[in-house]
C-alpha cells in the first residue's frame, strides 16, 4: 500500500508500521539506554535499603524541617501526573484534533508519575512498614482506625482513585490497538495480545462504545483530576502552624501549577518520542505549536496565582508571615532559588513561546519545557521548606535544611525510574494511539477556497442519545 493516498492521507498500513516500530522491533538505542537506567534504578533501591537500615539520619531532614526534598518530589510527580487527564480528557471533550498523537503518552506519564509519587511518602516515612498503621485498620483488638479527618489520609485515597481511574481509562483506549498488535504478532506475544484485546473485532457497536465511553470517562476523570492536587495542597493548607502553608488559594494554585508542569512534561516527552522513534509524520511541529499556545495561557494563569498567593499572605501584615516572605525572596540562598524559579517557570519560557518560530522549533520547545519543570520543582521546594526552616518562637532545636546527597540521588532515581517504566511500556504497547491517528486521517481532507487549498477536519454531528 502507498504511504499516502490521493487525498494526502496516511495509509493505515503505514500508520501501523511506523507507530509500532518500537513495539514490534527494538530500536538500536533501546537496550543501552535501558541498561544504564536500570543500573541507576538498582543503585536507588540499594540506597533505599540503606536508609531503611540506618534511618532518616542519612538525609538532611531534622527538626524543624521534617518535610524536605522527598515531599517536594512527591508533590512534583503528582503535578506531572496532571498531564494525562488535561491532555486526554479536556482535549477529548473539546474535540481538539491536535490531541491525537499525544493522548496515550500523556496517560502513561500520568500513571507512572503517580505510581512514583506514591513511593515518596513511603521513602519519606523512614520506617516504611509503618505506613500500614496510617492507612489500614491494622489492629482490630485496639479498635484503631485510620483518621479520616486527616488530609494525610485523604491524600492516598485521592491519589489511588486517580491512579485506578487513569489506568482503566488507558486500558479501555488501548483495546483497539491491542487488536492491531494481536493481528501482527505470532506465538506467545499473539496469545498475550489476544487475551488483552478481549476478542475485539471493530464493529460499529464497539467503535461507538470507544467514542462514547471515552467521552464519558473523560467527564468522570475531570473532577477527580481537580480534586487530587487540591487534596495534596491541603496537606499544607490546613496546617495553620506553618507560615506560608496556611492559604485558602492553595487548591486552585496547585492544580494550575500541576497543569503547567504536566503539559510541559508532555512536550518534553513528545520531542523525545519524535527523535527516538522517528515519528515525524505523526508528532509534527503544529502539535508543539498548539501545546505552546495552551501552555502560554496556563502559565500566565499560574503566574497570577503565584502573585495572589504572595498578596494574600502579605495583606494581613502579620509579622511572622512578612518575615517568612522576606526570607523566601530576599535572603540567601532562598533568594537565588526564588529568582531561578521565576526565571525558569515563566520569565524565560513564556516570552519565547510568543514567537511561532520557537513554538514550531522542537529543540527549543524541548529545552523550554525542561526549564519549566526545573522551575516547578523549585516552586514546590520553596512552598514546603522555608515555612519550616524559619526560626519560630519556642523552637529549641533549630537548624536550616540542606538535602543530603542521598536525597538528591533519590530525586535523580525518580527520573530514571519513570523513564525506565516508559521505555519498558513502549516495548509492549504503542505510545501513540493508532486508532485515534487513523480516525484523524478518515476525517481529514482539503478544500479549495479561491486559489488556496486549505486542510480541513470533518466533525460528526452529535445526536441525541436515547436511553
Amino acid at each position: 500500500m502507498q504511504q499516502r493516498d490521493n487525498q494526502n492521507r496516511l495509509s493505515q498500513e503505514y500508520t501501523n508500521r511506523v507507530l509500532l516500530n518500537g513495539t514490534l522491533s527494538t530500536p538500536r538505542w533501546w537496550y543501552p539506554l535501558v541498561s544504564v537506567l536500570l543500573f541507576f534504578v538498582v543503585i536507588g533501591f540499594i540506597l533505599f535499603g540503606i536508609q531503611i537500615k540506618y534511618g532518616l539520619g542519612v538525609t538532611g531532614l531534622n527538626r524543624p524541617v521534617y518535610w524536605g526534598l522527598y515531599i517536594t518530589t512527591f508533590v512534583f510527580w503528582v503535578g506531572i501526573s496532571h498531564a494525562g487527564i488535561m491532555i486526554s480528557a479536556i482535549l477529548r471533550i473539546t474535540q481538539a484534533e491536535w490531541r491525537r498523537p499525544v493522548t496515550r503518552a500523556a496517560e502513561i506519564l500520568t500513571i507512572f508519575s503517580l505510581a512514583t509519587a506514591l513511593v515518596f511518602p513511603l521513602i519519606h516515612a523512614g520506617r516504611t512498614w509503618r505506613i500500614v498503621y496510617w492507612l489500614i485498620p491494622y489492629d482490630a483488638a485496639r479498635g484503631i482506625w485510620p483518621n479520616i479527618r486527616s488530609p494525610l489520609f485523604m491524600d492516598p485515597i485521592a491519589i489511588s482513585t486517580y491512579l485506578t481511574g487513569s489506568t482503566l481509562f488507558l486500558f479501555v483506549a488501548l483495546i483497539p490497538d491491542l487488536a492491531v498488535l494481536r493481528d501482527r504478532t505470532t506465538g506467545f506475544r499473539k496469545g498475550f495480545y489476544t487475551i488483552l484485546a478481549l476478542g475485539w473485532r471493530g464493529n460499529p457497536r464497539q467503535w461507538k462504545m470507544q467514542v462514547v465511553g471515552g467521552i464519558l470517562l473523560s467527564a468522570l476523570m475531570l473532577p477527580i483530576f481537580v480534586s487530587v492536587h487540591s487534596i495534596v495542597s491541603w496537606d499544607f493548607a490546613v496546617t495553620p502552624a506553618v507560615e506560608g502553608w496556611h492559604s485558602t488559594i492553595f487548591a486552585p494554585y496547585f492544580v494550575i501549577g500541576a497543569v503547567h508542569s504536566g503539559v510541559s512534561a508532555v512536550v518534553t516527552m513528545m520531542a523525545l518520542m519524535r527523535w527516538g522513534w522517528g515519528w515525524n509524520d505523526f508528532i509534527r511541529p503544529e502539535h508543539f505549536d498548539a501545546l505552546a499556545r495552551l501552555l502560554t495561557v496556563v502559565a500566565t494563569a499560574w503566574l497570577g496565582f503565584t502573585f495572589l498567593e504572595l498578596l494574600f499572605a502579605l495583606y494581613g501584615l502579620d509579622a511572622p508571615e512578612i518575615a517568612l516572605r522576606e526570607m523566601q525572596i530576599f535572603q540567601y540562598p532562598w533568594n537565588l532559588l526564588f529568582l531561578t524559579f521565576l526565571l525558569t517557570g515563566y520569565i524565560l519560557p513564556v516570552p519565547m513561546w510568543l514567537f511561532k518560530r520557537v513554538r514550531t522549533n522542537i529543540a527549543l520547545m524541548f529545552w523550554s519545557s525542561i526549564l519549566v519543570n526545573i522551575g516547578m520543582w523549585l516552586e514546590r521546594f520553596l512552598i514546603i521548606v522555608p515555612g519550616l526552616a524559619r526560626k519560630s518562637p519556642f523552637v529549641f532545636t533549630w537548624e536550616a535544611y540542606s538535602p543530603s546527597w542521598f536525597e538528591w540521588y533519590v530525586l535523580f532515581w525518580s527520573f530514571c525510574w519513570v523513564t525506565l517504566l516508559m521505555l519498558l511500556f513502549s516495548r509492549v504497547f504503542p505510545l501513540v494511539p493508532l486508532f485515534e491517528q487513523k480516525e484523524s486521517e478518515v476525517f481529514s481532507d482539503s478544500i479549495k477556497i479561491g486559489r488556496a487549498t486549505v486542510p480541513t477536519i470533518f466533525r460528526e454531528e452529535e445526536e441525541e442519545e436515547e436511553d
Partner: protein
Amino acid sequence: MSKSILGLFLDPNHAADAMDGLKESGFERGTFDVLTGTPYPEGAFGEYVPQHRLFRFPAFGAIIGFTVSLFLTTATQLAYPLVTGGKPILSIFAMLIIMYEMTMLSAVIFSVIGIIFESRLPNIKPGIYDPRITEGYIGVVITVEDEDLNKAQKVIENSGSEEIKVV
C-alpha cells in the same frame, strides 16, 4: 448449518454498497455487520447500531460508591470515637471528601465495566475475521444458512469486494 462470509473491501463506498445490497436482498438486520480498523462516521455504511445503556452504569456505580463510603467513613469514626476539641464525632466535611473520591472511583469502575459489557466483550469466539481489517480493509460479515450462502456471496462479490472468505 450456518456459515459465515467475510468480504474485504478497500473502498468504503463499495462496503456501503454491500451492506445496502444485503439489506435489499432480505437478510435480517443483525445477521450482517461491518468491521473496520478505525471508527467511521456513524451510518457511513448504512449499518445498524443498536441502542446502548452505558449511562446507567456510572449512575449505578456512583450510588454504590456513595453508600459504601458513607458507611465506611461513619463506621470508622464511631468505631474509635476520638473527641477532638469537644466537636462532634462525625466530621462531616472530612467525610464528604472521602465520599466524593469513593463515589467517583466507583462510577469510573462501573463505567469501564459498562463499556466492556456494551461492546459485547470479552468475545471468546470472535467468529470470521481477517487481520487486514486493522490495516485499512473494511470487512462486511454475514452469517447465513447454507441455502442463502450463494445469494449473500453474490451480493458481496457484485459490490466490488477485493476478496471473500467463507467459514
